[in-house]
């Protein structure tokens, strides 16, 4: 599929989702996820408040260590602590939220699997959680690999620096592209973990460019915030450290919007591909 045709397919996938943005019911899973993210961020930032401390202090100690419990060090460690917590949330909670949303999008787009939604999700819960583990591990591995590049080389050589950043970004988009249909396979077709991952890779391979574009456009749009998060030292040194928490809150809001678009567009592509295969 050439680039223009792929862009057209990706564009049509997004366009078919736009009318659904006006239906509040479709936002519900994403709003619940955003609320969980805000609560997690709130616990981290307000860990020192007497009401939050019994949960906040152990959480900070676990995610960032004792040094993160000092001001303004908390804000230096905040993005990494938040990311670590989000990895757990992604596996245990976001996987379910995406499944619920996929089911809702599928029904609205004309695919109506038998049974009530909660029953269907509850039945597939272990599979949904397990299917989200490999991409999480892959992203962890990518971060570890990027961390292996010597710090001096990254600091002194802009080509290496931007090469590593670009490489990691590309790899993350590729990983997410190849597993993007796994949830749909589980929740709509009742696949097992291995079958869902295998078939997701297969669908992505056959619809590579549209899938890649559907995932890449939001990820690239979010990159400026991610980039700024890598320079937290500047915020602590030059601005108010609390700005970092504000940026993370902004990122959650952006992820809410882009999450809606990605899940909707991926569901649309999945239905198009499975229907055309049939």
């Amino acid at each position, binding site marked *: 599929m050439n680039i223009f045709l792929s862009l057209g397919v990706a564009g049509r996938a997004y366009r078919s989702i736009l009318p659904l943005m006006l239906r509040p019911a479709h936002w519900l899973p994403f709003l619940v996820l955003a609320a969980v993210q805000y609560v997690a961020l709130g616990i981290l930032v307000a860990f*020192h408040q007497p009401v939050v401390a019994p949960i906040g202090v152990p959480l900070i100690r676990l995610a960032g260590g004792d040094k993160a419990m000092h*001001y303004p060090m908390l804000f230096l460690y905040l993005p990494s602590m938040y990311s670590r917590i989000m990895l757990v949330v992604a596996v245990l909670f976001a996987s379910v939220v995406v499944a619920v949303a996929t089911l809702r999008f599928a029904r609205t787009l004309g695919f109506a699997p038998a049974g009530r939604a909660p029953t269907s999700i509850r039945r597939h819960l272990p599979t949904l959680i397990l299917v989200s583990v490999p991409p999480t591990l892959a992203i962890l591995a990518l971060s570890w690999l990027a961390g292996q590049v010597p710090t001096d080389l990254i600091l002194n050589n802009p080509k290496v620096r931007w090469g590593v950043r670009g490489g990691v970004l590309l790899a993350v988009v590729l990983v997410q592209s190849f597993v993007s249909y796994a949830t749909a396979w589980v929740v709509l077709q009742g696949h097992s973990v291995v079958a869902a991952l295998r078939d997701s890779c297969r669908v992505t391979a056959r619809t590579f460019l549209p899938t890649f574009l559907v995932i890449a456009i939001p990820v690239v749009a979010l990159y400026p915030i991610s980039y700024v998060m890598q320079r937290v030292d500047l915020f602590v040194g030059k601005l108010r450290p609390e700005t970092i928490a504000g940026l993370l809150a902004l990122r959650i809001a952006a992820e809410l919007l882009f999450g809606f678009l990605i899940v909707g567009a991926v569901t649309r592509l999945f239905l198009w591909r499975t229907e055309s295969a049939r």
Partner: protein
Amino acid sequence: MKARLAVVLVLAGLGACGGEALIGARYRAEREIWHLNEEYRRLDIKPQLVGPDTWRALAVRYEDMAASYAIAPKTDTADTVAHEVRTLVARSLISAAQIRANIGDSLQMHANYRRVLANFQDIPLLVAEVVLAQGRIAEAAQKWGEAASAYSNIVEHVAPLPGDPGVPGAVLELPLRVARLRHQEIVQAVAAGDTTGARAAARAAYADAEQRYAYWISTQPQTRLALEAHLHLADTAADQAHWQVALQELRLVEKQVAGNKESIVDAGNVRFSIALVQNRFAPAESTRATLLSLLAEYPQSPAAPQALLALANQAARLGATNDALDYLDRLRDDYAGADQLNAEGLLTRGRLLERESRWAEALDAFRNLPVRHPLSEPALQAPLEIVAHYTRVEDTQEANAALARAEREYRQLLARYPAHPITLSTRTKLVQTLALQKRNDEALTELLAISDALQGHPQGATYMLQAARFAYNQMDDHPRAAEILARLAKSYPNMDIGRWAAAEATRLQEGGSQ
């Protein structure tokens, strides 16, 4: 069984909550002091533009922060978090005291320092910081014995650590400072009529300083501490006129640092110190030889232009005008980047030429100073040098013209740079110019304007006192002097100088009414 387990869990939870509450308190205290310090740094960028009320408000916030997070010391357990909170509280009180000192509120300053000394003995470094500050205050008030005792106390309790930004970094110089303060006490003892005790105390203090430096050298040889201790040992010896010992120590240091590019001590600077010591006791020729050797061996050292200026001054003293001018030429040509030294060099050149009756060239040098080295002290001094020349040759007309020109230049400079590090110096020179023109009222008004500009700062009190003295001595206007002293007392009620001014104003007013 279940109920018991629940009770145990609740108790464990409550126990954990206690520790977590303290961690939360530490975080909040850190956040508050961080933002206060940021505010302090922001205001301190141009402190002259900040009013005393703003500073006072900041000091109050520091004091409030200390009151909010005050917790008693834990003597039974080594509670790190509690200790950290207490350190923040003590640090906050010290910052408040520093601000109070800057705005001349010595009562609150002393109160804050006393609180640290009374309640934070478990934090020795901060106690030492307070003692150091108290020593400096005593020194500024010329209470030499009190200052020496404070510094000795620090030396007894804190180990030196050169390069440290806190008290440990200041410890190394304290034994010598104590000895010098004890020596200063001899002057006070002269007034009392018995110097025997003071002389013995000074000798003991110098002996103690020598012992301490020798001890630090022997315990940590080949370290920065040892290197700097050698330098202080040289100063200690020089103070006591033990010139050979001083030279020996300096040569030892030079040997260690010569060729070592990473050393924090510059070999050229050490050689310059050797020349300064030689200048005190040896023939001029040996000093000259040392300075010339410095130029030959360490031409890149920051001491090299200083050596040229020193050579020029020495040649000028010995009457070798041409040699002096040659050195000044070399300073100008080879070290053009040394702006401050070149400004001093040009002033020296002008004075030298004036002394040699080469007035046209001297005048050229003086006139060039503000052009080549604007905003420097020598450039401010140059117009007054011209005035001094015409006064010396009794050319009243030219002297008056030079005074008018000097006044014009100072006023232009003030109009162009109303808030600059040299503004104060320029205004002081303007006062001098007005006084030389016998425009005493204007000079007094300017002095009072300077003190008003420094309102709330100890320096403002000094200028107001200067104005009172001017009214008393130059204008013979005792009521005006009393009025200024009363104003000084009102503006600085919490400073020693304010209390003294109140008594003096009353004395003058009573003298006037009698």
